[in-house]
């Protein structure tokens, strides 16, 4: 009656050896694939499960080739059963595997939200720390493909609000790789949110990455802090470029990288220095991730704020399918620029207004 379900397991699994699969990184998608391939080679406990992850190679082709290389016992095609997929990953994670489950769209999280929020997130806590749930749940979200209201959402705010979950949201090719590799080693459940419009984003692997939990200053600046993550980072960087060119504004651009852990310190330091900030997120405005950041920053940087911290977010509407409306439903470069200009507009009147 005393067999431990976890200890003996890990060792036997780790001893299984697998041939590496070379993946050439050219874009976000291949960076993710490389992380998975390496993770599976290095740790036999890593298994992938989800809809179409195997033979089909993934709805967005992230897992392409893994089934062929690692075989059906490491890459498991599942039926369309989102709740059970997550539940299965939980049980496997509790008993010695390190599952990487995939929900094809983050929009489907609603089907599995009980398993995500009531089970995966709380198991360690409810059971007094006896066991963790070292699983990764890869999901893909955001707009950009006219996929309609049920296939275009950004639901990270739901996940960020659940204690116990880690939330990683890479914006760059290099982070896609390094954060996913880190997720595979996390002892806590990681919600790994990819952006459907980033898969073809080109880039290279850097030699190293910031540790998990550190936000990246993607461009340093002195006049205003622009904070974002995932796809919106790139629009934010473009906005910063425009602001430099057209307004002679030197904006600092910060990429959160992970929403949990959340690097409040880097944000606070930057905004305390610049005195102005805009937070950009693709999710719907009310209750957005941006709201949380603003709420923290207006405390942490209060004494230095020259203007309110503005948000540029998705509209408070479902995502319409029409390409014109879809594009208008989420932040574009000009909206970011305009918000920054508004935040900067008190520059002439600094001090007077308060």
């Amino acid at each position, binding site marked *: 009656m005393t067999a431990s379900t976890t200890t003996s397991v890990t060792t036997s699994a780790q001893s299984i050896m697998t041939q590496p699969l070379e993946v050439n990184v050219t874009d976000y998608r291949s960076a993710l694939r490389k992380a998975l391939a390496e993770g599976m080679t290095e740790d036999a406990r890593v298994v992938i499960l989800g809809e179409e992850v195997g033979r089909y190679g993934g709805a967005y082709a992230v897992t392409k080739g893994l089934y062929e290389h690692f075989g059906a016992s490491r890459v498991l095609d599942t039926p369309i059963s989102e709740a059970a997929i997550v539940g299965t990953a939980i049980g496997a994670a509790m008993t010695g595997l390190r599952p990487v489950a995939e929900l094809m769209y983050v929009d489907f999280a609603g089907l599995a939200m009980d398993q995500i929020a009531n089970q995966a997130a709380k198991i360690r806590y409810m059971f007094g720390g006896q066991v963790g749930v070292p699983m990764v749940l890869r999901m893909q979200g955001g707009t950009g493909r006219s996929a309609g209201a049920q296939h275009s959402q950004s639901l990270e705010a739901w996940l960020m609000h659940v204690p116990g979950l880690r939330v990683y949201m890479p914006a760059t090719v290099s982070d896609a790789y390094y954060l996913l590799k880190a997720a595979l080693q996390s002892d806590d459940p990681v919600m790994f949110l990819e952006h459907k419009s980033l898969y073809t984003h080109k880039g290279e692997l850097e030699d190293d990455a910031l540790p998990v939990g550190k936000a990246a200053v993607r461009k340093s600046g002195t006049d205003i802090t622009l904070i974002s993550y995932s796809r919106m980072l790139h629009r934010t960087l473009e906005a910063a470029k425009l602001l430099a060119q057209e307004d002679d504004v030197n904006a600092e651009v910060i990429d959160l990288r992970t929403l949990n852990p959340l690097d409040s310190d880097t944000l606070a330091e930057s905004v305390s220095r610049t005195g102005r900030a805009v937070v950009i997120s693709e999710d719907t405005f009310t209750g957005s991730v941006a709201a949380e950041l603003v709420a923290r920053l207006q405390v942490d940087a209060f004494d230095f704020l020259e203007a309110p911290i503005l948000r540029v977010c998705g509209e*408070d509407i479902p995502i319409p399918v029409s390409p014109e409306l879809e594009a208008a439903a989420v932040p574009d470069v000009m909206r970011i620029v305009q918000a920054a200009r508004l935040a900067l507009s008190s520059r002439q009147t600094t001090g007077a207004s308060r």
Partner: protein
Amino acid sequence: MSSASADTTNTLDATNNDAIDTKVLLELLTSMVRIRSFEERVGELFLKGQSAGTMLHLSIGEEGAAAGVGLALQEGDSFTTHHRGHGIFLARGADPNHMMAEIAGKASGYCRGKGGSMHIADMQLGHLGANAIVGGGIPTVVGAALSYKTLQQPYVSAAFFGDGALQQGILYEAMNLAALWNLPAAFICINNQYGMGTRIDQAAASLDFTARAKAFGLMAASVSGEDVGAVYQKATELLEVARQGTPVFLEVSCYRFHGHARKDKSPYRDADEEAQGRTRDPIGRARDQLIAASSLTQTQFDTIQRDADAEMDAAISFAEAAEPPTLTSMFEDVYTPTAAKPTPVAESWQP
């Protein structure tokens, strides 16, 4: 894409198909030809870059299910569909122009260009909505059936879904509720053998799906979608049972002739299987049957085809000429029209 069919006349099975009225069969054939012609043009719309997105799921090969069950439903009945629902709605009287316009994301589409291919709906025709969540529209019909029972209306509500939804738990919750409450609900599974790249036997251990439905207390049957007359007859029979308060389950087996969505070339299926699958053509079979019975000539069939093609070409033109939605319409329809609309996010602050 031609609707050339293999010689399937002699594979007619033993259902009481000969009992079917040739007029009805002709109507079913016409319905199927229109559906296929429409779907082919959805493919064109995509190739022209005029569709809203690429998530277009064609029901070519499944016309027997759509036309057969569609005709068996009656005025006032309602239904929901899955993401592959164009054919079903056409069989229930949809206007191809407004469908195609919706698929193109235009303002004159059924849903003002907000829904698209996966979210077509029309309350006037009882279409309670297509759904992009596998299984998402299934419990809707339990609710509609509850309305009919509560309000003593003589209607049935039917959920159409694919074989993929057979592994979604909500189907069983919905069937159990319908059975428990004796609701006039019908669960129509269009089993086209695949959910994306996953063959049905890679998704389920046991493939007798009527056994599942029966175990939940439903009356259940399975029919080949290749035989539109048989589908119509079986559906008519079951819908009558449902109308009396015993919910029903009907599996219509068929083959998805093309890829999952417009971009999928089905590399996971081998050529033989596909060629074989495409011989399961409900249009060719019904046509040949009618011709063999001397109830139709090839010339008459060609006219049906030509009329359908002309109608659907017109739908393409309608959709292409249609206006995109105005930007302000984006903020409409989130809430009831009398309520305040959401305001654009731009934060207002006056320094």
